């Protein structure tokens, strides 16, 4: 079926404006949050109901047309990068909160609902949706399920997989799967976990029931400065060793602190090698006690400066700098490239000094922000895409960081997903048998490989051809994909 035939078929049940095929209409969909990778899709479809999604899938399945799902398009790994001969299935118009049950503490929502909109709707009941990825103003819950999104509070409150109860999923055949349930577990294999973080490779999520959490009575944050990144790392371990699970624990290095302080004016210590933010939440009495203990631990760990937020305004100011790290990178550099490795925390100093050495070797600056509680490291490599060869250098630098994360006992992606970006590093992290099993799992849902082809799991041929390292991605666009 060619593109015009498909448009005609889709328009038999979709309004004309819900099927885009003109070049200029397709342009906004050519990339997600990872703009280094761009591809115009053949067609964009914007269904408004589950039934329309099912009809689109049935047509694509029958004609073997690839389907790439897209939520808000905020993903950072190119997971929603379109397929040149495929349909980009935007779920943005399925954006209704269908039911909010304050007594059972659940919300049943469509996939296009924004993460923050759920918490806003639940606020009247003293409830909220706990996972809070930094893009929560914009990102959609369907995308959160696809990526198993986290946030700064996930050490205590969990990731998406810990906070959803039920999914309605359409297979590529257009068949409905009701996964999970109203209780805390379900019969059969744990498909709820398998779907979460599956990057649109297994099915299309059309409805999500999330768990809502009571809003804590109080939150307070300790801001500690260290003259040595090692001491800051030890401080994190000391907090955990004291039996404290902080609501949030974030670290920034000197270059990041300086970049954000310049325009946020959070009052950070500019001479510090590392800044640590440690938040406590819960009952008032509990927070008061915990904050006191955290203060003592920071002192014993050798902090050169410790401040505790005195009120909500100050707490938000302390956080403002950390939350502005990415835009700050955008201010000090024309472009930046965000990495997403996770490491056992004990190896932090080793990995950071490795990054410092690579930064010197490549002549590229790198800012480091760190979800210290759960070991998720976000190095932001600063570069200028207009300088010939600099993006390639950046990518090579990034690939080496990920390699280092694997060697340190960690993983190439903590929360951004593999997408197209880290597909070659998958060859380093997994052995052949494991990659084969991933393909088998996909085949159990999508035997023809039509959902988001070429993402998340590399073909064995790709791994063999590219080797594990020193790959300039983008030289060859999707060599493994069948053409239609």
């Amino acid at each position, binding site marked *: 079926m060619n593109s015009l035939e498909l448009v005609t078929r889709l328009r038999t049940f979709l309004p004309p404006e819900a099927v885009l095929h003109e070049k200029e209409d397709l342009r906004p969909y050519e990339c997600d949050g990872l703009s280094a990778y761009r591809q115009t899709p053949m067609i964009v479809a914007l269904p408004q109901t589950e039934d329309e999604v099912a009809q689109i899938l049935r047509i694509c399945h029958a004609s073997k047309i690839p389907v790439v799902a897209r939520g808000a398009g905020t993903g950072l790994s190119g997971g929603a990068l379109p397929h040149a001969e495929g349909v980009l299935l935007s779920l943005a118009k399925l954006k209704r909160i269908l039911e909010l049950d304050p*007594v059972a503490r659940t919300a049943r929502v469509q996939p296009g609902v924004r993460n923050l909109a759920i918490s806003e709707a639940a606020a009247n009941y003293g409830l909220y949706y706990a996972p809070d990825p930094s893009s929560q103003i914009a990102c959609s819950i369907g995308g959160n399920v696809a990526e*198993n999104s986290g946030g700064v509070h996930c050490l205590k409150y969990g990731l998406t997989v810990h906070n959803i109860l039920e999914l309605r999923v359409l297979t590529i055949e257009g068949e409905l799967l009701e996964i999970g349930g109203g209780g805390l577990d379900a019969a*059969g294999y744990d498909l709820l976990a398998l779907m979460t973080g599956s990057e649109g490779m297994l099915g299309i999520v059309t409805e999500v029931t999330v768990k809502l959490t*009571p809003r804590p009575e109080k939150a307070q944050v300790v801001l500690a400065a260290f003259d040595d990144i090692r001491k800051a790392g030890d401080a994190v371990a000391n907090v955990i060793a004291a039996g404290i699970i902080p609501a949030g624990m974030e670290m920034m290095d000197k270059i990041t602190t300086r970049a954000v302080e310049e325009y946020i004016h959070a009052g950070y210590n500019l001479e510090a090698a590392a800044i640590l933010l440690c938040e406590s939440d819960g*009952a008032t009495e509990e927070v008061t006690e915990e904050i006191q203990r955290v203060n003592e631990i920071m002192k014993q760990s050798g902090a050169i400066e410790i401040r505790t937020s005195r009120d909500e305004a100050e707490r938000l100011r302390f956080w403002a700098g950390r939350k502005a790290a990415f835009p700050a990178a955008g201010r000090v550099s024309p472009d930046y490239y965000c990495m997403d490795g996770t490491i*056992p925390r004990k190896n932090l100093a080793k990995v950071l000094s490795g990054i410092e050495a690579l930064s010197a070797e490549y002549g590229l600056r790198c800012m480091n922000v760190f979800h210290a509680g759960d*070991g998720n490291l976000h190095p932001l490599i600063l570069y200028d895409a207009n300088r010939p060869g600099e993006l390639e250098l950046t990518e090579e630098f990034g690939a080496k960081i990920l390699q280092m994360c694997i060697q340190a006992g960690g993983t190439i992606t903590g929360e951004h997903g593999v997408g197209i970006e880290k597909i070659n590093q998958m060859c380093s992290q*997994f052995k052949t048998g*494991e990659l084969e099993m991933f393909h088998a799992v996909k085949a159990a849902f999508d035997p023809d490989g039509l959902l988001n082809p070429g993402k998340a799991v590399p073909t064995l041929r790709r791994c063999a051809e590219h080797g594990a390292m020193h790959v300039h991605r983008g030289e060859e666009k999707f060599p493994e994909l069948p053409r239609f």
Partner: protein
Amino acid sequence: MQEIIDQFADTIRAAARESASLLIRSGGTKDFYGNRTANPDGSEGGILNATAYTGIVDYEPTELVVTARAGTRLAELETELRKRGQMLAFEPPHFGPGATLGGCVASGLSGPRRASAGAVRDFVLGVRMLDGRGDDLSFGGQVMKNVAGYDVSRLMTGSMGTLGLLLDVSLKVLPLPAAELTLRLPMNEAEAIDKMNLWAGKPLPVSATCFCDGELIFRLSGAAPAVRAARTIMGGVEIAEGAAFWQSIREQTHSFFQPGKQLWRLSIKSTTPPLSLPGKQLIEWGGALRWLAVDMDADTDAVHTAIRNTAKDAGGHATLFRSDGPCASVFHPLAPALMNINRRLKEKFDPKRIFSPGRMYPEI
């Protein structure tokens, strides 16, 4: 240890060659759970005893992660964690001193703290396993956040040994609460269900709930000031033997779980009003778990159907958890589309269908 793994792999490959069935078993403490399995020709299958593969591989309390071999006794693992002030927060039931980590993860059962802390699957970070070809595969890892590849580790959790043999398991652990207090409040069932749901919607440190015999018994856990403050709000009379009480619920030694009855487990929406079903009930997990003890003489097809339908109408599922006789349909029937996916996954992990065929469903 590699020698033991090689032996396991040989056993699996031999079974695959002959299409013979293998029951993965260590302490045998969960033998009662699931459908009775046998080879397709009616003869009993072989047993793959996994107890030899034992020991803690890696434990760094400040990383909040422990990695241990599947044959490790659960009691031993929990003792090691306790020494460092930590715990398996999902409070898995042992059902006997022989319980192992592998059996705990494979059965996917969680205890009283589940509603507040999460289930086994929420704490599983990574597994190393042998699939139905005897291939040695690792998924997930030793870190809290990891989205590289599909979440096979959690898929293995609760799969009852039908997808592969667990070798090493990495789990997130949590600190033991600084203070714990168990309290009781007399009330009827409907009031208790309301109360549990009301409390769960407030920032209170409730870590376990149980309604039985006209009393709501609940546990508060956390920092001492938080527990004190909550007690003032919530009321109730303290139970001196609180720890022993929760142990009796977790291990089903409480008088409710007396032998000689059929024990059903209904996992349903927490706000579901009292269920009108024959037999006696005990409620856990803030209302989301209802245990039902039915007299053997009331065990009819009509009762089974009523229980299944009641659970389904309440948004959940029913499991015939313990029964005297062999049963071929312990777990709640799956919708055809879901069964299809379950069956295909089984084929991918265990193409010769050697691992406990039929233990979960006749189709897998």
